[in-house]
């Protein structure tokens, strides 16, 4: 039984579909009704749940609903994220707060609720979708980079707190992945990726989903508190 936030499109949708293909019953959380569409496509008993993860009550309610409808919860993928790009001097506090609320407070809310059923099961996988921007920074993304770097510290703390209960917590740091979010970035940055990544291409949601499936599996039980960079070598 798995839960994926931000599952209506992009990387979240890709992860939800991949987990379902591996046999997991997946709850597709999204702030819109788009989670239902992903669930329908995923099949295998997947469900859609509307939830704004930045709101603690909604996150708790959504996790309770997932546990009840799926009969438990073993895997939680914190993928929901937003960007409000702006050079720091022009960035408003609202742009800062919104990004931190969804990208960092969201995972806190979800993990707080999801850890209980995982502790009961003595088995759990928490996967946080960070970003290479959280490792190396990016001009115009102070809010996003801070949230994604924060998520890495969060990942390590959670790994330590719940390690004794068979729960692992890891982060994936995607590079430049072709999604709606990155389609809004300037063409020159896309071209830069093409020219500078050893792989010579942009990443796909399937590239990230494969990493998530690996971390969610039994074989990854001895890997915790790590950041798996999936960027085609871009940050080398």
């Amino acid at each position, binding site marked *: 039984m798995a839960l994926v936030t931000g599952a209506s499109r992009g990387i979240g949708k890709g992860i939800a579909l991949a987990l379902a293909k591996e046999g997991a019953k997946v709850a597709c959380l999204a702030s819109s009704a788009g989670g239902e569409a992903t669930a329908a496509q995923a099949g295998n008993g997947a469900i859609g749940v509307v939830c704004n993860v930045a709101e603690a009550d909604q996150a708790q309610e959504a996790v309770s609903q997932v546990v009840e409808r799926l009969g438990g919860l073993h895997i939680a993928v914190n993928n929901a994220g937003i960007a409000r790009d702006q050079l720091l001097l022009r960035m408003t506090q609202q742009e800062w707060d919104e990004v931190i609320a969804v990208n960092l407070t969201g995972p806190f809310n979800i993990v707080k609720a999801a850890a209980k059923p995982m*502790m009961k099961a003595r088995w759990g996988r928490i996967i946080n979708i960070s970003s290479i921007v959280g490792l190396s920074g990016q001009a115009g993304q102070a809010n996003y980079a801070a949230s994604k770097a924060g998520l890495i510290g969060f990942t390590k703390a959670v790994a330590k*707190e*719940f390690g*004794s*209960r068979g729960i692992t917590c890891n982060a994936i740091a995607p590079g430049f992945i072709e999604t709606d979010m990155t389609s809004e970035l300037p063409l020159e940055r896309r071209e830069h990726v093409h020219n500078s990544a050893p792989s010579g291409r942009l990443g796909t949601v399937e590239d990230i989903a494969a990493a998530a499936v690996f971390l969610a599996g039994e074989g990854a039980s001895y890997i915790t508190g790590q950041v798996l960079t999936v960027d085609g070598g871009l940050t080398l």
Partner: protein
Amino acid sequence: MDEATVLEKVKKVIVEEMDRKEDEITLESSFTEDFGADSLDVVQLVMGFEDAFDIEIPDEDVEQIKTVGAAVDYIKKKLEEKSA
């Protein structure tokens, strides 16, 4: 709620949260020494008591609750305060 009822409910929480058998729980049982509870178990127990009795246990009170008997006394006191 009388003491026997409180004890019954406390035992139920311990069985549920700590995977213990009811007959190994006595008033003298220490959560950490007899049941091997670590800090995470203690938090789970406290949250279990809060839910079972609909009370709030502040962090600073947690260290008073070292044994089953201490938990029963504490919860009884809390329930009396609540109904007063």
